[in-house]
């Protein structure tokens, strides 16, 4: 049978990055930022994220919160992304990002308010330009491309400083056109956009292996003509280093990047889900052996930087912070019914005045 002769036109590699392995051992020399202080700070923030997250699930179970999407097991990604971004950069989050939100300065009570059914939670007091959490999948990555365009435009034409947009999404997001359209445009227009895919292995019940035939999600960058890298998403050092490199590249005019951070969702999809229907106990047990907090703690212990005393003190401090956040959430009075019109348009059109007054009467 005739076999046509073909010449290779292009070839690609996908690299992966790790500093701390599953046993908390270093696999290569740590980057400069990995000082004892910063690693302890990351450990603290990851611990806080886990506590805030765990309390959210408990509050949902007792009727104090609505449906909540836990990010148990993904703390290293959120904290790594948040730590790599400049305060002035703009974060465009998906909905499962408690760790990153805390790192960006979003208050605990704001996170609880969002899932407690109060839009005021998205009026971030300390992250004024960050986008609100996106419940639709992958749309925020396109918004991130638009933000990145604006930042680049304002830098080039309105004398504003160079800033970067960072958008996050789950593995399921990479199946959507929005994801591809965003990285395609960002590559084409060389936008300062960093897309971080939080590959937690599950899109509700669909496992990563059935999400796509791609060997990695990072390689989807190749189709958009941009750099793609896979990192160990349970290794906060690797996440921060990879995102930091991508942020620096983007800030210096080098264009967008795609980072796939591989982690595992150690929880149900949301409090309305039961993951035991579709995942085996063995898989879950194996995933727990790779989880990010213990890994960093083991490393810190081994390096003589941490011990039981510090751990106890940290737990005490974080418990106080958490309890204050819970109190703030519980003590926030309900929003006025008219608020649903107050923020619909900049100025309430006359056509809605009658409905507005109806709500005022019902207050």
């Amino acid at each position: 049978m005739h076999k046509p002769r073909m010449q290779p036109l292009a070839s690609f590699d996908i690299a992966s990055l790790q500093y701390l392995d599953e046993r908390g051992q270093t696999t290569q020399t740590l980057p400069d930022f990995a000082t004892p202080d910063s690693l302890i700070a990351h450990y603290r923030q990851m611990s806080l994220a886990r506590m805030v997250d765990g309390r959210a699930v408990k509050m949902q179970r007792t009727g104090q919160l609505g449906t909540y999407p836990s990010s148990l097991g993904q703390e290293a990604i959120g904290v790594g992304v948040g730590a790599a971004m400049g305060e002035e950069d703009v974060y465009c989050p998906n909905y499962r990002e408690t760790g990153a939100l805390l790192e960006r300065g979003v208050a605990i009570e704001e996170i609880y308010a969002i899932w407690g059914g109060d839009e005021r939670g998205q009026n971030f007091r300390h992250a004024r330009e960050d986008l609100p959490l996106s419940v639709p999948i992958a749309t925020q990555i396109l918004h991130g491309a638009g933000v990145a365009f604006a930042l680049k435009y304002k830098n080039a034409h309105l004398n504003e400083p160079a800033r970067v947009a960072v958008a996050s999404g789950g593995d399921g997001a990479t199946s959507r056109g929005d994801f591809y359209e965003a990285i395609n445009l960002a590559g084409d227009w060389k936008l300062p956009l960093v897309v971080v895919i939080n590959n937690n292995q599950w899109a509700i019940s669909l496992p990563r292996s059935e999400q796509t035939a791609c060997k990695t999600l990072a390689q989807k960058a190749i189709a958009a003509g941009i750099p793609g890298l896979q990192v160990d998403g349970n290794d906060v050092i690797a996440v921060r280093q990879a995102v930091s490199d991508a942020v620096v590249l983007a800030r210096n005019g080098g264009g967008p990047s795609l980072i796939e951070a591989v982690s595992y969702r150690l929880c149900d999809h949301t409090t309305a889900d039961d993951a035991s229907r579709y995942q085996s106990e063995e898989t879950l047990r194996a995933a727990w052996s790779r989880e990010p907090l213990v890994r960093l703690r083991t490393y810190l212990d081994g390096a003589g930087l941490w011990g039981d005393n510090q751990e106890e003190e940290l737990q005490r401090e974080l418990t106080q912070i958490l309890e204050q956040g819970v109190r703030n959430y519980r003590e926030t009075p309900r929003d006025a019914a008219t608020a649903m019109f107050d923020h619909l348009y900049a100025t309430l059109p006359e056509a809605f005045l009658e409905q507005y007054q109806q709500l005022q009467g019902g207050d």
Partner: protein
Amino acid sequence: MAEITLVQAVTQALAHEMQADPRVIVYGEDVGINGGVFRATEGLQERFGSARVLDTPLAETMIAGIAVGMAVQGLRPVAEFQFMGFIYPALDHILSHAGRFRNRTRGRLSCPIVYRAPYGGGIHAPEHHSESTEALFAHIPGLRLVVPSSPARAYGLLLAAIRDPDPVIFLEPKRIYRAVRQEVPDSGQALPLDCAFVLREGSDITLIAWGAALKETLEAAELLAADGIQAEVIDPATLKPLDIHTIIDSLEKTHCCVVIHEAARFCGLGAEVVAQINEYAFDLLEAPVQRVTGYDTVMPYYQLEAEYLPGVARIVAAVKEVRDYAKGRGL
């Protein structure tokens, strides 16, 4: 002063606002060197550069989505869709995000976006080019929906839309893009949004129509005048929020009403107009309000589009039916 067409008035408004405000960014498919498939952006890239007038990859979801990101960062994106029939992939971003950001963030972020699209039938275009599905947008909270029907209103309303702090869907009736010429001074003077325009005064019946359908509606009004029926013709212009007051004021005089639109009838905007008239002005009516609309079908290929679109004869017949009903009641 030269007279210009509706599409040239769109270009004039875009150019004026780009000159006045460096935050205004115009982008879409083929809007750059080609000046847009209808030439609405002709010359803008030459004048303002490719950093502000941008050709995008062919992806309507993206066109709608990046506008949200640009707008929350303080730019004033004006995004063009080539045809309204191509806007459906973009709906997710328009409905789920652009219309909701202000509310979702309790006023922290807002989306001052203009999504422009030529709409409507009658230009012998292929399938998916001739839809009139404005009701989709009118139903969605947080959006403004604006349809100009003359060069002067296209200019003034587009300026207002770009300056508005909230997202505006700006639908351009492409059948009349070049049907009328008018002197439109480039004054930078916006026309008010949320405000209907009385195009013709009359005492016998109120005709409400928008966009290209006003062409036939005004022609019908002339024919009716020859028969001794004086029709008042109202162009709501902003379809949402709807200025029902101007309509009610008119009904105080005429007591009869016909609503004309080329969109399908079921859940079309005519239904909302009739519902509001019933709520606020039932006692003024001498006859039920009639609708003259497109049919509840798929917009046909162009051989049948004249049958689909509400023509002068259908409008005149509906007016006579309403008037006969009112007379029959002896009012």
